[in-house]
């Protein structure tokens, strides 16, 4: 029986989130691309530590929700707030600093897995915080990846391994907001458990897109989308 990612109090009951600060707030967000409505008046709030999943048919607008938050897709109407500040050219930098986005086929952007993990530490924002080899191996082990993968070509590893390497990179950067697109779809049972264990951390906030029933079961909230509209919002264990 899967357990929820949600914050567990000592008694074993799930704590509720309304007292936690809001990390993301969508307020009547609408996105129209070439006269086609992709998102229509979406509103929801995601609080610190919460794990939410967006589900719905293909084309229902799930991935667009993630893209709007990263500034990759402009809004036609409504607003997005990050830590209660409206998303603009300045706050987007804060969003990107704190967020890890892991898509179905992540781009690692370097020749070897080691280079991919160290890539962000070449940038001014992270220079001087380069992790040691020991730290790299520890984070890989946490995600059920062997240390030998460090020297493998990043183009030759499987989709599931790529996703976990991308996740490892987020952990090394100390990101606390994770936008995940079908992150467990290509994983075996053991690797999946390792990923679940990572997100059991109450400090990590997750907004995901998934169809995996096990993942859905573990998330605190399920946001169901249909043709760009939020049709249902269910809270596991909070009802």
């Amino acid at each position, binding site marked *: 029986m899967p357990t929820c990612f949600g914050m567990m109090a000592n008694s074993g009951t799930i704590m509720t989130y309304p007292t936690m600060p809001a990390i993301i707030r969508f307020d009547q967000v609408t996105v129209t691309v070439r006269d086609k409505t992709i998102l229509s008046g979406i509103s929801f709030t995601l609080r610190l530590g919460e794990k939410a999943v967006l589900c719905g048919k293909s084309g229902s607008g799930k991935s667009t929700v993630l893209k709007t938050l*990263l*500034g990759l897709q402009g809004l036609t109407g409504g607003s997005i707030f990050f830590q209660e500040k409206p998303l603009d050219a300045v706050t987007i930098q804060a969003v990107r600093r704190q967020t890890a986005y892991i898509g179905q086929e*992540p781009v690692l952007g370097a020749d070897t897995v080691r280079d991919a993990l160290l890539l962000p530490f070449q940038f001014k924002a992270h220079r001087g915080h380069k992790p040691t080899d020991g730290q790299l191996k520890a984070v890989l082990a946490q995600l059920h990846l062997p240390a030998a993968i460090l020297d493998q070509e990043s183009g030759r590893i499987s989709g599931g391994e790529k996703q976990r390497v991308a996740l490892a*990179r987020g952990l090394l950067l100390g990101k606390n907001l994770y936008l995940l697109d079908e992150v467990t779809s290509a994983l075996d049972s053991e690797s999946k458990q390792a990923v679940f264990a990572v997100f059991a951390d109450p400090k990590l906030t997750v907004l995901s897109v998934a169809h995996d029933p096990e993942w859905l079961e573990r998330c605190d909230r399920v946001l169901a989308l249909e043709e760009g509209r939020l049709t249902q919002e269910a809270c596991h264990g909070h009802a």
Partner: protein
Amino acid sequence: MDTLDIALPQMAVLYGLCLAPWLLLWLIGLRLSRDIVISILRMGVQLALVGFYLKTLFSLNEPWLNALWILVMLAVADLSILQRAGLKLRFFVLPTFIAIALSTLFATFYLVVLVIQPPHFYDARYIVPLAGMILGNCLQGNVIALERFYSTLRKNEQEYMTFLLLGATRWEAVRPYYRVAVKAAVSPSIASMSTMGLVSLPGMMTGQILGGSEPWVAVKYQIAIMICIFTSTTLACVINLKLSLRNAFNAYDVLKDEVMELRK
């Protein structure tokens, strides 16, 4: 020694040489007669006009007229670069103009003022043909740089966005594509310098020798022009790409959809 002029009957004989390739192309089934005739006519008319302009320009030798001529060349080069690179004028016309103007004028005046040192630095006989040659080559380099940069960036948009999400600034995220584009743009002029005189005799040197110059003088001018072409092409590409970044991205560092012309 003066160059032998080519009289009009001899010019007619020269055009007769085109009959051989035209016949060959026709025999192998390529129907290019119309294109060949139009191209040859255009070449004749355009060069006749340039000859007329240059003759007037050289005889008047007015600084403002020379400056105006260079300005016209820069404007035409600017439009031509963007058209050939498939980029929208409204985003790139100004950065491209600034980049090619700065680099061409810098290289031309460096050569004229510090190296050749004619009695007047604005002497049309020097600045007009030299600026033209430098600009012509600079144009090729900028077409390659802009086209390569924006097409590679568009092709690798996901990778670029990954860099941004990993904490890169816009400049840090585009740098890999920037380097590739600048290298592609300056490589032809580096390769050209390394094979100069071995693969072919350069056009300017040949022209000077035919014009009656001493081979050593022609060689020195050729070296001078090659160095100026390399310098101006590199400067223009580096500046142009850097300046273009301001207009090509939105406030969220996403490459605007509308910067590239739709290719037919």
